[in-house]
């Protein structure tokens, strides 16, 4: 794991170009994935980790092409299984910085089980989920995050599936770090990724990503200059939930439900608004925030939850160390000769 003691500083300062592989990037022109790749390539050299100690594991889907374009160790595996593969790698090599790049189909449909169990264990993986709310590589079917009524090739009459929120799923699975960013706000995305990289245990980041071909403008309200200030809300620890073009809209709690209010109207002041606390031991507030969706409410961006808990690989390492302390370092001859033995002369 990346505890300060384990970090071996790179021999020379790394730069973004050190993380660009020689492979041609093959996403569609205008795909939101480009922006994410660029931000990842930008922050990796700043983390103080030697390049050879990064491993990027992906599953299947457009987003899962990611590792090919990074000059790190990487594996483009099979559909949905990246968290399981990454867990085995991290457990056997805790000193590596292991990242998972996945999508809404990969992580939430076919790979849902591995996704939730990685977070339940709090194993030290950085999971980036590029959520475009559509299946792109198979040419446009609805995904577990597509809105109801969505017309796609597999739902010509509209989808009757209820979508779920990746952030809510992560929180439900007990994730200790949960954040969201949008592909159009590069600076904010970089800051969220940096926070994820520094976290002990599983760090989950959902990135709202536009698919220009099959689901263009899915986050139009959030990315359009004219509307984004009213469609999104940037979460800040210890700050009230305040947003809007004029910074006068807010979220108030009314009988366990969110209420949209305007500061300065009907006697509402900033003191009435919900104050964000990403460190709250109880995940209730974070889950409350995960339920805020357009168009009724602004979409929260930033860190929903960041709490400290022992990382799985660290507990595993301690368990092995304790076993050696209690029983002594293993000796094969002694092991084979253990139990009830008898000798025939």
């Amino acid at each position, binding site marked *: 794991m990346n505890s300060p003691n384990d970090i071996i500083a790179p021999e020379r300062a790394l730069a973004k170009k050190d993380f660009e592989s020689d*492979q041609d990037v093959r996403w569609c022109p205008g795909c939101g994935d480009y922006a994410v790749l660029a931000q990842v390539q930008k922050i990796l050299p700043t983390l103080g980790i030697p390049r*050879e100690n990064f491993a990027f594991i992906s599953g299947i889907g457009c987003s899962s092409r990611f590792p*090919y374009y990074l000059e790190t160790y990487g594996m483009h595996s099979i559909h949905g299984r990246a968290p399981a593969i990454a867990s085995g790698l991290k457990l056997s090599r805790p000193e590596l910085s292991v990242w998972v790049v996945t999508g809404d189909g990969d992580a939430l449909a076919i790979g849902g089980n591995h996704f939730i169990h990685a977070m339940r264990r709090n194993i030290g993986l950085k999971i980036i989920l590029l959520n475009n709310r559509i299946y792109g590589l198979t040419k446009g079917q609805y995904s577990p995050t597509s809105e109801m009524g969505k017309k796609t090739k597999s739902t010509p009459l509209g989808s009757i599936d209820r979508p779920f929120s990746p952030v809510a799923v992560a929180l439900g699975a007990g994730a200790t770090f949960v954040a969201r960013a949008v592909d159009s706000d590069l600076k904010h995305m970089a800051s969220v990724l940096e926070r994820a990289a520094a976290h002990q245990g599983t760090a989950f980041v959902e990135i709202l990503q536009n698919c220009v071909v099959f689901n263009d403008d899915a986050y139009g309200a959030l990315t359009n200059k004219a509307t984004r200030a009213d469609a999104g809300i940037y979460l800040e620890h210890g700050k009230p939930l305040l947003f809007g073009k004029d910074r006068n809209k807010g979220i108030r709690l009314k009988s366990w439900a969110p209420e949209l209010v305007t500061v300065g109207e009907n006697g509402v002041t900033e003191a009435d608004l919900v104050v964000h606390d990403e460190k709250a031991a109880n995940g209730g507030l974070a889950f409350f925030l995960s339920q805020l969706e357009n168009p009724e409410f602004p979409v929260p961006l930033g860190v929903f939850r960041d709490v400290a808990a022992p990382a799985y690989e660290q507990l595993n390492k301690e368990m092995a160390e304790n076993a050696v302390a209690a029983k002594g370092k293993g000796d094969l001859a002694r092991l084979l000769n253990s139990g009830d*033995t008898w000798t025939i002369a």
Partner: protein
Amino acid sequence: MATLQATHSAERPPAPEHRVEELDSVVIRFVGDSGDGMQLTGTEFSKAVGEAGHDFTTHPDYPSEIRAPTGTLFGVSGYQIQYSSRPVFTSGDAPDVLVVMNPAALKTNLPDLKRGGIIIANTGAFADSNLAKAGYQSNPLEDGSLDGYQLFKIDISDLTANALAHSSLSKKDVGRCKNYFALGVMLCLYSRPFDKEIEDIRKKFAKKPEFAAANIAALNAGYAYAEAREMFATTYQVRPSTAVPGKYRSITGNSAAALGFVAAAELSGVPLFIGSYPITPATDILHDLATFKNYQVTTFQAEDEIAGLCSTIGAAYGGSLGLTTTSGPGMALKTEALGLAVMLELPLVVVNVQRGGPSTGLPTKSEQSDLLQAVYGRNGECPVPVIASYSPSDCFDCAIEAFRIAVKYMTPVILLSDGGIGNAAEPWRIPDVASLPKLKVRYRTEPEGFQAYARDENLARAWVKPGTPGMEHRIGGLEKDFLTGNISHNPLNHQRMVEVRAAKVAGIVKDIPPSRVDGPDSGDLLIIGWGSTFGSITQAREKAAAEGKAVAHVHLRHLNPLPADLGAIMKRYKKVLVPELNLGQLSRLLREHYLVDAVQLNKVQGKPFMVAEIYDRILELC
């Protein structure tokens, strides 16, 4: 095999004085409710005979329900042991002795007992309600229907309760001690000392001294009861074994496999990682390894079968010896990930402790029906080396062999065992660590000229661990360029890659030692077997050979690729017989590879072959 029947029959008048009779071998089956502790009684009895220097083989046969309703026919749990002064290869066909704890146990097992065999029955459980549950109209212990057998009626329930009258244990816990009473009776009948057993009970229940005391009292009471009543006119002693000198321990196939995997890690100096999901009858390998954490062993109970193998792939990528263990249905779930491991060319081992299939099938029963799945069961041209262990002890050697192949050829390897091997116990001569094969593992750390898919003389690519400076590269499940490993959709490159993966696995043949042929070099019949049928085939062949039949036996460890000399060996015999616990899977492989007219002998009853079944087929063929 000498039988009890030869010297005793029910009609025989009681001997005037106590005699000790020497036997070559004896087959005993303990049967009761799944909660009666028969597995423990059987295990403890086999330990006692092993410690006395006998060879033995056991066959636990238990229902898949943990505690089926008491007294029911489907809740019967059994444990059979054959022990002998000579090498023993099977748990025996028909038992000489049946220890039955209730009517259901008698009903389901009587048909297997030898005519004139001994029945030791716990009369305390033969109450009306239990008789009804077993479908008896009248009490078979009283109605004369067992006249053809030697019947010993002992109220084990009541005698155990009496012996523990002053115990502080609850009535329910006292009832649980009756298996030790039965063990005491059997140790007396077979002239086995029980001091060691008392010591073992003390150890086993070290944290619950009141249970230790109660079980020891029950054991003593059982032994004393049998001794004082002179209930058996004759007790039996199996002649001491002439086994190879050495240090022995009793071992099951699953435990031997676990030790073999730790040995592979120690011999190679590479940490072992097991990612596994619990499944009968394979889980004990995970259980055992979980207790070896001071041996560079990481155990990971994954969220499902797929994650079991995927975490193993991740660990192998990280440079560990990757291991996953499963049984048939779990193997089916691992199929796609196994294909990925083939594409990635990473070394790991998948153990399939086979059980009855298809689907959930017969979880606690043994079968050999996953061979074709192992050899062929993946999408695409996807070759995987397959080996199979033939006995509990052999699981140790096969575990090391599986990793030897995996790391030398950079490939996943499937190791097939089965429920019969995994749970059965036999004495294992503990090997000297210095005599174990060396496992050479080399990670490439030299960036100069590195190509991810460049190959050595064995067609294996280099094993490069993440964390190695200057060698960052990407691998994946998409087809790759022959040298660089970058994605390639080039048609000719794909053909070349498919062919080189096949050639790599086929090339393992040069590493397979010459096949051992038991019996004449040529003759009328060659029996080819694999896996747990080894014992039955060996005994049947020896019996036929002793009667002058020109019959030989080759038992295959390597099933993909098959040994290079097998084709030539088959040509030296007029006929080839392939006994298998499936509908003919190895027969198909042999026909496909050698165009040989293999004669099948198939059984799919969740039970091992009886020696007689194979012996009879031999006689029909030569």
